[in-house]
């Protein structure tokens, strides 16, 4: 079994109007090479589900997003994602704004075949009152009202991992896998980009197998793209690219806008992108953030 494919082949599997989940968290371990491939495509009207960073900002700026399901969009050291703000402030995108934990419950519901998960989270806030996607339910076991977080079913999920084998066994070696396991399980098809392609025997060591967070049947395709998370981080291999994010944010402030960024970085292939940002060695040399 060989699930290897190219980023272009992954994007060819996606269709206009699909609901696409993107793993990672803010500026951390985002499948940015796959996102760039979407930016290069004519894909449109996507519903994006993400703990958002530049993945969301770029897709919004490029007009790929019809609707965003989110709890935040941030670059951490740049708290407010500039292109996401522009999209919201111009009314360009529909939103389903959730609490971070609610989003996890929604992904779990989808992963576990549940119609919804009832929670008190969101009660009394505008996350419920401004979100037509959220309904209240009663419990047969008490007299309280509860928020029914609907299953966040994904047509596809895009995730970046440290290592994978050709059969779709994926390892996240960094300190946190975030909610990526639930993205993988909530999706009909999960496509991963990996920094390193390894033999299956790499996982024989139980300590390595413990860092595999979903079974291979939940992985539909594997794309080997060293540095594929750039400009987001892939700890412990490389940190996020602070100067690059600053330049990216700068484009939001001047005339050129995202078109300026795209012209500089997204004209050619992923190889062109990597040389434009200094090459793979430069990416691998990016320092890890200190929290």
């Amino acid at each position, binding site marked *: 079994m060989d699930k290897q494919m190219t980023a272009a082949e992954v994007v060819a599997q996606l269709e206009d109007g699909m609901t696409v989940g993107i793993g990672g968290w803010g500026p951390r371990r985002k499948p940015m090479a796959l996102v760039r491939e979407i930016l290069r495509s004519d894909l449109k009207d996507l519903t994006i589900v993400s703990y958002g960073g530049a993945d969301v900002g770029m897709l919004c700026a490029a007009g790929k997003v019809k609707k965003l399901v989110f709890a*935040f969009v941030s670059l951490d050291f740049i708290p407010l994602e500039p292109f996401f703000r522009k999209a919201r402030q111009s009314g360009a995108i529909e939103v389903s704004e*959730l*609490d971070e*934990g609610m989003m996890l419950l929604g992904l779990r519901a989808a992963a576990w075949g549940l119609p919804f998960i009832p929670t008190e989270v969101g009660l*009394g*806030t505008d996350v419920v009152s401004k979100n037509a996607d959220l309904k209240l339910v009663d419990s047969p076991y008490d007299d309280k009202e509860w928020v029914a977080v609907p299953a966040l079913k994904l047509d596809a999920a895009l995730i970046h991992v440290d290592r994978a084998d050709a059969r779709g066994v994926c390892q996240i070696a960094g300190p946190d896998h975030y909610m990526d396991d639930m993205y993988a399980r909530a999706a009909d098809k999960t496509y991963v980009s990996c920094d390193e392609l390894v033999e299956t025997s790499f996982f024989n060591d139980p300590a390595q197998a413990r860092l595999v967070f979903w079974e291979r049947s939940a992985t539909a395709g594997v794309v080997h793209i060293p540095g594929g998370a750039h400009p987001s981080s892939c700890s412990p291999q490389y940190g996020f690219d602070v100067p690059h994010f600053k330049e990216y944010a700068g484009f939001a402030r001047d005339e050129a806008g995202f078109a300026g960024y795209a012209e500089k970085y997204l004209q050619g292939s992923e190889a062109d992108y990597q040389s434009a940002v200094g090459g793979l060695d430069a990416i691998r040399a990016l320092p890890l953030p200190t929290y």
Partner: protein
Amino acid sequence: MSNDYSLAELCICAAAQAFAGDGEVLATGIGVIPRLAASLAMKTVNPDLMMTDSEAFMLAEPNPIGERGADFVQQNESWMGFSRIFDNVWSGKRHAMLGPTQVDRFGQSNTSALGGSYEQPKVMMLGARGFPGNSISHANSFFVPAHSDRVFIDGECDFVSSIGYNPERLPRGRSLDEVDIRLIVTDLCVMDFAGPDHQVRLVSLHPGVSQDQVLENTGFPLHVPDEVPTTAAPTAEQLAIIAAMDPHQQRAMQIKDNPVGDRS
């Protein structure tokens, strides 16, 4: 008792008190001053507190802020990735100190959208983040580095990210007493919600700050007791701990112009 301390250090010590009676909960301070407040509390008034490395591990000893040098050994005690953080949030065994953009008289806060319409806000911010879940699950406090009526607004928040003491929004089958907002620490004063019907109450004024200064800069009426004490100055021990937890002096950049603590 030292007279040579900054306003940031005063706020850190005042904010640390918020965690004093918490027992064994996860203290999450977002931002330099709240994080140092939680660290100080763990090292003084409440050693049972739990803190993370702000990434994926629970720590037996809080990390100093900023670069820690190659020889530094982080005192991990358990894995605590983001998915597990929600196990903790929903258990209620947590106290978060956060800095929202707007806070209204109900203690409702806004981290998401300002002005315009919800479909097209004038200013889009972070989003609701974890505020809805935090506010209904566990104790919360706020730190506001620039006390003004643009933060403490007269009306209701443009977007309500966290539940407060607003009877209009009380969910069916629940009581306002289940909401647990503790302290609000600002550059001017300390406040809580112990006024009549959970009204915001003035707890203490920072040295050299007048009651009027606070009232003028707060968009809603405060409950003012007859006696309003002055916020306690940091002790030498507290300042030493803060200095050790913030070796790169990041606290000096948190409040505009890094004022001295005693402005009288």
